[in-house]
């Protein structure tokens, strides 16, 4: 589904990603862990196409297409979803309007029929209920006045409505209490744990992986994937910290 080869990227001329190679197949959940400053968020933003994140070398192929040839909104329409560590507040735009515009823009780009207002509201309410977000919050401006947990649940509601092929979730677990963490884990499992979908889960801690069992765990340090293993690797990191790995790189 997603094939990254030798990816190098920089921000403001500063090299952050220094040769990442990674393949994600349908049905797989990959976790990327690593210390602060390793380049985890940069990887997510580079794949999402955020302005300012410059690809200097390497390729990324998504469903057979050259990902870096697509504009950010085209990547979304192709089935890529980027979950934000800090979802943006947009005063003056209701959640419902935002999501309906987004979904219909994607459907239009894929040549599918747009959803009517009634059809959309039904879908949005179902997803909100499923994820424990008060459906009233759909009427409020996007993320304005939402708590950290509500913002992340809102990201999951968006993911449920948009129903992507591949979700790249950037530290979706940061700043969550245990209930919100469970809700987010439940959201990822119900929406994305399917044979035709895949997830790239970026996290600093192993906690979320108690709820979302990864098939592969990669350790990112200093812009490279330095180790890859199964779920047991996450536990090892939790026990021993990143110190040993970063020491190995330094050596």
């Amino acid at each position, binding site marked *: 589904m997603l094939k990254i080869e030798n990816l190098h990227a920089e921000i403001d001329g500063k090299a952050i990603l220094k040769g990442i190679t990674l393949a994600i197949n349908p049905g797989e959940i990959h976790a990327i862990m690593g210390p602060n400053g390793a380049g985890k968020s940069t990887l997510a933003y580079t794949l999402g*196409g955020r302005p300012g994140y410059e690809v200097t070398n390497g390729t990324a192929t998504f469903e057979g297409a050259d990902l870096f040839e697509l*504009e*950010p909104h085209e990547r979304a329409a192709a089935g890529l979803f980027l979950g934000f560590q800090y979802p943006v507040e947009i005063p003056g735009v209701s959640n419902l309007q935002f999501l309906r515009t*987004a979904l219909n*823009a994607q459907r239009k780009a894929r040549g599918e029929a747009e959803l009517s207002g009634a059809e959309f509201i039904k879908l949005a309410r179902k997803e909100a209920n499923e994820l424990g977000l008060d459906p009233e919050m759909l009427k409020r401006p996007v993320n304005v006045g939402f708590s950290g947990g509500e913002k992340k649940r809102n990201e999951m509601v968006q993911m449920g409505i948009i129903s992507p092929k591949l979700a790249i979730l950037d530290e979706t677990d940061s700043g969550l209490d245990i209930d919100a963490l469970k809700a987010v884990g439940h959201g990822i499992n119900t929406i994305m744990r399917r044979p035709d979908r895949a997830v790239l889960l970026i996290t600093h801690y192993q906690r979320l992986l108690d709820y979302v069992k990864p098939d592969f765990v990669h350790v990112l340090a200093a812009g490279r994937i330095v180790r890859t293993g199964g779920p047991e690797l996450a536990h090892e990191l939790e026990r021993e910290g990143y110190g040993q790995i970063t020491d190995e790189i330094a050596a």
Partner: protein
Amino acid sequence: MTLLALPSARDEAWRWSDLSGLPVIADSTPTGQPRAIDDLWIDAEGPRLLFVDGVYDASRSNPGPVRVGPANAHAGAHAIGKLAGSTGWALTLGEDAATTGPVQIVHVSTGGANHLAAEIILDEDAQASIVESFVGEGWVNRAASIRLARSARLMVARRFLHDAGFQSHADTAEIGQGASLAITTLVAGAADSRLDGHLALTGIEGFAEAGGALLGRAQQRHDAAFVVRHAAAHGQSRQLWRAVADEQAISSVAARVEVARDAQKTDGEQSLRGLLMARTAAVNLKPELEIFADDVKCGHGATVGELDRNSLFYLASRGITPAEARAILTHAFVADALARIGEDAVRGAFTATADAWLGA
């Protein structure tokens, strides 16, 4: 040749306006062929008045309590407002009287210049709502005098939508004890504009609100200059302006709050925000406070910027095209100012007008 004595950019109060084109516009001849105006009537019960090139069209009006004829706009001291003359329309409501629904006035111009005065006098506890729309081409110049007695309430909403020419309007208001005046302006056409207001809170516990949205593109210049003067204690005022400029447009707002020595416990607030849609556009914001009383609360904020890049990327990451993302965020920026309009039908119509401009 009309002899026009106009202020120039050398006058501080007019430095952002360009009136140099007015003599030529004023000398042109109206075509007398007004554009269709049916879409400008808002679906709401109430009086309706139509002026074509400044001339009242009785056959297409239903004036209700509004009288067409002499009107004193008290604009003698205003450089352009004084040209509005002493005829136009007047609305006088006695104690406790109220208009049924908003008074809608459509001004359509076909070229040249037309001037009208307006006078609005509300007695104690009277209530009125006025909605004006300006369309067409040529120079439309208006001046209005507003006097509100104790606890009277007036809401004014104006749309300036000229395709060409120039639009100028000057308000002078006296707001009595516990009275309330709210003026909301939307400039969303293709012609330059100059809007002036001098609102004086002369009775205690008065309320004044002046604000709106100036939307500019091409080489348009829009300039709003409003002064709220607190002459009595315990007054409240709000000035909320949103200025948008695209291409080579210049949108400017000067908003001043004056608090006289005796106007203790005044609560004045200003929020001026500018949005630059292109690096070649300009927004000027000038918040001013002049305070002679010592126990007042006056807050002001003025910011100019581009659309937030984080928000644009967030929308894009959900599949929304760049053009649509810009339209959504600009709409949200403007919506703030139009949200102050009380009546749903009027607010809806103004929002649709702004959306049409943003989508164009």
